[in-house]
């Protein structure tokens, strides 16, 4: 950020932001994709996804360590030559934007369908994006703090929701892991379900903001975060399966929302507590989008530095506007589905695998340049 003092975040905040960075998009499809492909073996597909996510996270952190004090968009053009750097910068920006648009559209459709049927989608989407923009407005420190403060209550609510939904489990037999293991189906399910883990690639931008000396800890915490998500979602999976069974689950458009919608407590102020919980998932989606917007604004200012210097806040406005306008590309939920399937997953996985490999390979060849980049940033060059 030109002309702006570099704010620093702690290891815990880094892990929170990374975790917030991937959950928001796939969560509402979960576990439909895995179950429709692999039946009761869907859990294995999901666990496989978790392992893959862990490996890719390791890989991307390894890449971040090559130039730990500079964002990827900052050092890409130096390390990988200018055209390649610009190309990758553009890829990063477009991909993050697509993720943000897709997540807000999806959530707006879920919410619009069950909660605000007469409200136009753009209004739901716009309100969400504007909120996300305002959270990201103050920069990384404020964003990280907001996420920390809102994620802890959400965690409690998630546990509560799992307990509440677990009451509706009709078929405990479904909780036992299945012996039905079909490798091809599981791989297929894992591929389609991977959407839930796409998004932690924002660490390429976030990594340099971690306090000096906290990097290792930040990485470790991110792994813990992943583990926590795996545990929570496994529980969620079990509840959904126990309630609906594999056939119904693969037919539900948004299994998570459907599961919450059957939670109904008689004798409480709010009887449809599940519906309330769906609305509270706004926090997850807003976090997902605000982290994205922060990344986008940052990358945009680095990307455009050579042409026009733009401020971080202008970047936020531009990207937020782009995210709102992007909504109009999606007339209905099915289009969003198809878009996610055909574009976001392959490009996301491509990014997650491709970029670390390229950077690590080039860094091992151009050792001198890498060393130069490392010392340059340590000398206090502004990011």
């Amino acid at each position: 950020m030109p002309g702006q003092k570099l704010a620093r975040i702690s290891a815990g905040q880094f892990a929170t932001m990374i975790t917030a960075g991937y959950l928001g998009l796939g969560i509402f499809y979960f576990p439909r994709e895995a179950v429709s492909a692999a039946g009761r073996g869907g859990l294995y597909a999901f666990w496989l996804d978790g392992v893959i996510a862990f490996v890719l996270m390791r890989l991307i952190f390894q890449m971040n360590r090559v130039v730990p004090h500079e964002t990827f968009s900052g050092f890409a053009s130096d390390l990988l030559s200018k055209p390649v750097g610009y190309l990758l910068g553009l890829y990063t920006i477009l991909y993050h934007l697509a993720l943000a648009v897709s997540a807000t559209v999806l959530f707006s459709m879920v919410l619009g369908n069950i909660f605000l049927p007469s409200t136009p989608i753009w209004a739901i989407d716009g309100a969400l994006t504007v909120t996300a923009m305002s959270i990201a407005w103050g920069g990384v420190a404020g964003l990280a703090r907001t996420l920390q403060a809102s994620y802890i209550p959400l965690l409690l609510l998630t546990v509560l929701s799992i307990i509440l939904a677990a009451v509706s489990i009709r078929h405990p037999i479904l909780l036992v892991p299945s012996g039905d293991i079909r490798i091809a189906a599981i791989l297929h399910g894992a591929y389609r379900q991977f959407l839930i883990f796409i998004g932690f690639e924002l660490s390429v931008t976030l990594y340099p903001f971690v306090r000096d000396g906290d990097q290792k800890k930040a990485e470790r915490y991110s792994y813990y975060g992943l583990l926590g998500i795996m545990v929570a979602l496994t529980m969620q999976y079990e509840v959904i399966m126990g309630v609906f069974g594999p056939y119904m689950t693969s037919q539900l458009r948004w299994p998570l929302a459907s599961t919450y919608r059957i939670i109904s407590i008689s004798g409480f102020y709010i009887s449809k507590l599940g519906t309330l919980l769906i609305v509270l998932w706004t926090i997850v989606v807003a976090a997902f989008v605000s982290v994205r917007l922060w990344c986008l604004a940052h990358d945009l200012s680095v990307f455009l530095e050579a042409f026009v210097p733009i401020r971080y806040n202008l970047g936020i406005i531009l990207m937020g506007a782009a995210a709102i306008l992007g909504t109009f590309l999606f007339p209905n939920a099915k289009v969003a589905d198809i878009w996610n399937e055909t574009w976001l997953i392959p490009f996301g996985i491509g990014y997650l695998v491709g970029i670390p490999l390229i950077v690590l390979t080039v860094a091992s060849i151009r050792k001198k340049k890498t060393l130069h980049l490392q010392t340059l940033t340590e000398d206090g060059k502004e990011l």
Partner: protein
Amino acid sequence: MIKGLIRKLAALFMLLLLSVTLSGCWDDMPLDTRTLVLAMGFYPAKKPGQITVDFSFPTPTGLTSSNGAGSGGGGGKGPSFDTLSGTGYTLAQAFSAAQAKTNRDLYLGHTILLVFSTHLKAHQFNLLMNALDRIGTLDKTPFVAAVSAPFSKVVGVKMTQEEFPALYFEELFTCALCTQFSLGVRLWDASNRLATPGVDLVLPEITPGAKGKGPEVDHIALYRGYHYVATLGHSETTAYSMAAGKSRKSSLYFPHHWHAEFNAVSNNMHLHVDPKGSTVDVTVSLHFTETLESLDTDTESAHQLAVLSRVSSAAIGRRILTFLEKTQKDDSDVLGVGRQLSWIDPTAFRKYRPWHRVYPHVHFIVKTAVKINKMGDLK
């Protein structure tokens, strides 16, 4: 200059806000401008292919009287609830037709009871369930019941215990301990059963009571897929509730064995399926607990209890087996044998397709165990 512009913009914004606020917008619709549909009934219309949907809702009179005292208007004499009907080829058409008859928004967010006529054609039932699953405002938690009598006889009846009949049925189905059998089926449960192969739908049937009495719920309606098959009487319903592990407050009487009477018979059920060649062995294991309510001897002996336990377990087993054979005749897999198989051994289940050809030939074994846990207060 800029300050003035900001002030003008702010004024404009305020005006805009005020006008929007005054005109009402989007989802903002106060409760008193909504017709709160509490129950919906689905019937085949006179014209073939069409359906009639009945919407039961509380009237302002009903609302104020249920509230004790309203703050304004209302208070007049009149029925506390009313029914609107709409007819059409689809749910949406019927809905529009009904909406045309009221000045308020027909609001489905508080629908707590859906009744389906047993005369509905399978494809109509299918269409309706599909449409209901897609309505966003309609929660998936309303209770579903079958009826053969007209809507006005079952849900349009004035009740002594509850202001609105729909509330009566909701409480009846919600409270597992208040009823003899917990027969309540929620919409999501029903659509789940309809969507899952290897299991069939069983709905409680609401029957109109004798003259001057409220409707009763002690029958069940069996379905095969979306086809209505049969309605079972009280005795078979008891057998079903036991077989499905849903019995709560049944009682058993053995006139030939010391006039023993058991009360609060409750049980749980475990289903075990074992594919054997072209057929499937199904073991239904049932564990009952009963309370000994009366006995013609003064005190019971260990021998008596052993005999009673054996006798009641045999009697229940026989009854359940008869019931299951009846469902096989009707080809309605009420216990979800096929579903169980599909979970345990999906490849075997795939071999048995279509399941409805296999189910009538399934071999049932009913194992019952009875535990007499309470002996009454004094003795």
